């Protein structure tokens, strides 16, 4: 019968160094984000003009910014922002992408042709440019940046779903399910999706990392998260003005972005290596 993927079925996952490191970094990020909702050393948005531009010290471990706000607290709360944007954007992309990719693989012929050609056009269009255009239409803000990043994820998941599910439609157990009269939607839900789940999870991890980078870029340009809410990209933008006098302002938010993306990339690489070494080839082809 159909092979159902579950990360819990992988034996000794921590023997894979990529997975172990990626898992650890991602776990620390998640815990930091959760912790920041109940505790941060200082209120991330509270200004204290008497304590502006303090370099890292025992009271403010990562220093303070131009308004005297604590950088560590802002970096911690910024993690929530990045995770939420990444999760929502990937969910939008995966939800619509899997639906469209499944339609293309099931109906084939002109439905496949139309969906794939549209997704080719979207896929070929630079993601940053699309995101900037969409946020400029919808207006800057965190919700609109999630939508913008989510939209450019749709063709990626549509192409992956189509590419991986086409061959599964030809398998004997799917033919058998059809022969006993199972409905098409039931076949997709019970037979096709469980078989492509591993590919979707791996791609989802990679896209999560890309979404965090994209959000940081949009916030840097002033199109993503709006002040005073802490966002790593926005913090870098503000830091650039004071780089000559307070270079530490530009270091920590960037480290947070790079570490998060590194963790997710390693997690994705590790999962791919463990689940299906052949998958990396398919992912390179789509």
């Amino acid at each position: 019968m159909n092979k159902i993927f579950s990360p819990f079925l992988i034996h000794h996952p921590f023997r894979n160094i990529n997975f172990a490191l990626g898992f650890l970094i991602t776990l620390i990020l998640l815990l930091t984000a959760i912790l920041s909702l109940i505790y941060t050393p200082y209120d991330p948005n509270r200004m204290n003009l008497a304590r502006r531009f303090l370099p890292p010290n025992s009271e403010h471990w990562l220093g303070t910014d131009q308004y005297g706000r604590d950088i560590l607290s802002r970096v911690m709360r910024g993690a929530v922002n990045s995770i939420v944007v990444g999760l929502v954007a990937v969910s939008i992309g995966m939800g619509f992408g899997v639906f469209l990719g499944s339609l293309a693989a099931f109906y084939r012929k002109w439905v496949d042709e139309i969906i794939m050609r549209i997704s080719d056009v979207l896929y070929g269009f630079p993601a940053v440019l699309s995101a900037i255009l969409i946020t400029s239409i919808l207006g800057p803000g965190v919700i609109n940046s999630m939508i913008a990043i989510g939209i450019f994820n749709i063709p990626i998941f549509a192409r992956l779903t189509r590419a991986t599910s086409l061959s599964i439609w030809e398998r004997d157990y799917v033919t058998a399910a059809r022969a006993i009269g199972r409905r098409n939607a039931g076949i997709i839900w019970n037979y096709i999706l469980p078989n492509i789940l591993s590919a979707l999870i791996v791609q989802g991890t990679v896209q999560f990392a890309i979404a965090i980078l994209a959000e940081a870029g949009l916030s840097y340009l002033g199109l993503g998260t709006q002040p005073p809410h802490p966002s790593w990209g926005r913090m870098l933008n503000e830091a650039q003005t004071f780089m000559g006098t307070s270079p530490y302002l530009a270091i920590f938010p960037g480290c947070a972005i790079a570490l998060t993306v590194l963790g997710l990339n390693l997690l994705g690489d590790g999962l791919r290596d463990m689940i299906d070494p052949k998958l990396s080839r398919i992912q390179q082809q789509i």
Partner: protein
Amino acid sequence: MALFLLKRGITLFITLILVSIVIFAVLMVIPGDPAQIILGIRATPESLQNLRRQLGLDQPIAIQYLNYMRGFFTGDLGRSITYEVQVTSLILQRLQVTIPLAILSILFAIFLSIPSGIYASLHRNRAGDYGVMVLSQIGLAVPAFWAGILLILLFAVTFHWLPAGGFQPWESHPIGALKSLLLPALSLGFVRAAVLARMTRSSMLEVLGEDFIRTARSKGLPRRVVVYKHALRNAIIPVVTLIGLQAGDLLAGAIIIENVFHLPGIGRLVFEAIGQRDLPVIQGVVLLIAAMIVVINFLVDLAYRYLDPRIRYE
């Protein structure tokens, strides 16, 4: 070959038309009336109506689209609302920054990635390989704009070797212009190099395991010839494809980098145009970037068919 070129030419044309329709439709919903923006809030309804007629904004969208595309193919993209000059000349002027920036960053990426990818593949599972892989993981994780900020911090703020931003014209200060582009190109190139190095390594490893490499080695050919003439020639094909795909991304990635370094390129132009609701400029730049990407992909397609004669012109 001729049939292949014809088929690909038709596909290229259809893709361009589809892209242009999508862009035109998307930009039609951008809030803000261009006539109102030009004349300001004190404009009378009559003057607004007159200007809309003059700009062709009172015509049906389909007619506006056809007029625009006719202009695109004849090099007339309309007039910029903000700058009050022809969009074509504005774009041509800004491309003098963006095109050299894109070329320089691709060159940086190639010089950093291909030798390191080859080195890693030849020293698989040894310290050198791990070093290259760790560096490439870092390159993938670092946003280009943060790399830019760090480079400014190091080379402009600390050592004062290179400018932190701005651009000097090519005509009067060619060396200054080149200096202004070095840091932005390096920050864009470093991130691209990470992807290319990984691709070069995996592609080389795959080819080095092939039978013809074993044959070449067993014939007693020098290692240099086997690696660079036999293996690299075959391994480079997916890398060339990736370079082509990245060229498109570079043009778009330039939007953020040009803002980091205050470079007057098309990325900064379109970003400012979006803020000012300068529709003709946004349309012109976006369509041009999309057209360049489609054309680059077509050229890449031709290039790898040249590199690998086994690929048939179907």
